[in-house]
């Protein structure tokens, strides 16, 4: 094999049996009853024997996964929940064994599957740094050397000698991430740990990860945060239900993934949702998202769609105003659609009436990706009656307006508009001032 390979994975599969727990207890009793002196081997044979394997359903958390990672490569792993990403990292960090297949890892491995593993609430910050460091595979000398760095990165200098249970949860998380961020392995396995603390700390974490990735270490990075993936990774694997469906270019993978998470659910029952605010004099019981062609929640960029909400009124309402906010996944509000901003209100409606309101939205000039919609309604000039606080996902996908290569370059923005472009050419005049550089010329 090539010397440059840090990780090779060959046909790794992992099988889990569902509903095993009950079975176990029964077999224990059985085996004890059948032979009082039954050896543990007997119990085990019974436990994993063919009988229970046949009678219980199994799932393949991973199926025939093969790939290689070169030294210094930063590999992203994305996929929906339950697609096997974490199982893969657990196998590579030797926490659990594969059912079949093998993997080889060359180099010291540090894995970070959870922030704060092994933190003990009764111990002080200082003690926890040492304990957590040791758990993550750091040597005592190494921890001592980087102790101050860890503390100042976590911004907990004043509380180092306070038991961690008196820390706010944010502080605990920051400290835990900070310890982990100062690991020095050659190969780092990271599972979704950047969503820690407030926004500014998250930015700091991201910076730290970029730094780590830039140091020539091999990183396997599991995440749902696509901006982080696209910023950090050279290459991305997409896992879907335990199978490797794509291995290659980061942006192509992200596109593929965002398209695949379309859950096809265009009618969302919101009547039971508890994440809502408002006076409660009425309720949005159903939200329906429809594309121009009656399609599902995934829309092409610039394609018009409809947001339909079904409102059940408890009390009468004379002038109903409604709307929705559209945000990016990280919570930035991009669009605020409201009927009263167009001078519109509806009604009057009597109590116990059901109103279905349809908002036709012209094509949105947004970059492809997942966005969230938060519908609400109110009585004109009054408080919001019902406001959904759990966003409804819509996926905007590229439909030919952009080549995916162009998307890659331009990802930093929010709004995507179809501009017209012109270019003129002329020959450079010989008497131009030689020191006038093009960039200066444009900045003047």
């Amino acid at each position, binding site marked *: 094999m090539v010397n440059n390979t840090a990780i090779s994975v060959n046909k790794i599969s992992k099988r889990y049996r569902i509903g095993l727990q009950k079975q176990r207890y029964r077999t224990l009793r059985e085996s004890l009853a059948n032979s009082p002196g039954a050896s543990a081997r007997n119990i085990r044979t019974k436990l994993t024997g063919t009988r229970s394997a046949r009678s219980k359903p199994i799932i393949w958390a991973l199926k025939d996964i093969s790939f290689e990672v070169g030294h210094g490569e930063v590999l992203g792993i994305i996929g929906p929940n339950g697609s096997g990403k974490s199982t893969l990292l657990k196998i590579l960090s030797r926490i659990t064994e594969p059912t079949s297949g093998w993997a080889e890892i060359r180099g010291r491995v540090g894995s970070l599957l959870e922030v704060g593993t*092994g933190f003990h609430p009764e111990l002080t910050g200082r003690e926890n740094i040492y304990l957590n460091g040791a758990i993550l595979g750091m040597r005592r000398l190494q921890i001592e050397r980087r102790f101050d760095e860890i503390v100042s990165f976590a911004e907990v200098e004043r509380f180092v000698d306070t038991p961690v249970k008196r820390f706010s949860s944010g502080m605990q998380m920051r400290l835990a991430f900070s310890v982990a961020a100062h690991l020095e392995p050659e190969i780092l396995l990271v599972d979704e740990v950047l969503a820690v603390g407030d926004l500014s700390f998250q930015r700091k974490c991201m910076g730290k990860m970029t730094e780590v990735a830039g140091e020539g270490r091999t990183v396997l990075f599991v995440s749902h945060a696509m901006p982080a993936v696209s910023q950090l990774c050279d290459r991305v694997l997409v896992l879907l239900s335990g199978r490797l469906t794509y291995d290659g270019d980061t942006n192509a993978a992200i596109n593929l993934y965002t398209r695949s998470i379309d859950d096809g659910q265009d009618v969302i029952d919101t009547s039971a949702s508890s994440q809502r605010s408002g006076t409660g004099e009425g309720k949005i019981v159903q939200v329906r998202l429809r594309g121009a062609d009656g399609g599902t929640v995934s829309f092409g960029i610039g394609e018009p769609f409809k947001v339909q909400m079904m409102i059940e009124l408890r009390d009468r309402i004379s002038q109903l105003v409604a709307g929705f906010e559209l945000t990016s996944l990280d919570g930035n509000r991009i669009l605020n659609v409201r009927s009263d901003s167009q001078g519109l209100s509806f009604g009057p409606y009597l109590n116990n009436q059901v109103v279905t309101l349809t908002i036709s939205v012209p094509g949105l000039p947004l970059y492809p990706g997942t966005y969230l919609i938060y519908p609400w309604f109110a009585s004109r000039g009054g408080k919001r009656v019902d406001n959904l606080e759990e966003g409804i996902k819509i996926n905007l996908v590229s439909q030919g307006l952009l080549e995916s290569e162009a998307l890659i370059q331009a990802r930093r923005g929010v709004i995507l508009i179809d501009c017209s472009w012109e270019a003129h050419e002329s020959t450079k005049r010989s008497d131009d001032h030689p020191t006038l550089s093009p960039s200066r010329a444009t900045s003047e």
Partner: protein
Amino acid sequence: MSNILEGAPTVRIEPSRGWISLRLSELWEYRELLYFLTWRDIKVRYKQTALGASWAIIQPLLTMVVFSLFFGKLAGVPSDDVPYPIFSYTALVPWTFFASGLNLSSNSLVQNSSLVTKVYFPRLAMPIASVLSVAVDFALAFLVLVAMMIYYGIAPSWAILWLPLFFLLAFVTSLGVGFWLSALNVTYRDVRYTLPFLVQLWLFLTPVAYPSSLLEEPWRTLLGINPMAGVVESFRWALLGTDTAPGSMIAVSALVALGILASGAFYFRRMERSFADVV
């Protein structure tokens, strides 16, 4: 100091089958983690208790008082010609060590399930750290024993030099049973409920409240099949100079204890592959 895995070794990950090696060298590489886990267990044990570490003394001491009253005074159990209180306390010190060590180690994997499912380390470290941490309690209780010996005017003979070995025997016994029960506990939580009962029963099968000299040979030697019997009697012999030297019994105990340790360690390693999935 060199790094844990210097020289970029290649680790091969594949399904293991059957009985597998103990990988003691790896355990040695992780000795710092072992140290920190032990240290954590010690630090945390008596946090937020009013009496703190004195609990380590109170337990065997109160048991001694109860035993002295009921067995020594009321029942008139013989005590190999030493005062009954010190006779029973000398046995209770290693016994308490064994019992708490067993208790902690048996629950160690389940209690630390978040570690087991999120971090790799040689899992054997977990029960080992538990038993090691109880050694501190043993030391505290032993100080009281020394005080009692002074009070009763009992001077130890050269036999006391054997004591570290006898302590090791208690350690090995506790750890060996701990290996078995902690691994079983991952799959069968029944262990948690069986344990208090098991320890209580074991106490009566061990000559803590009574002398093994009540038994005739060869029954006395056979009692050594319970390794704690050997431990308890050897402590008495080494410290109090009870003249019934239980040599053959201790030998039997040592053999059995080593057998439990080895079988427990291998069983543990065999079950280890499924710990993270089942715990």
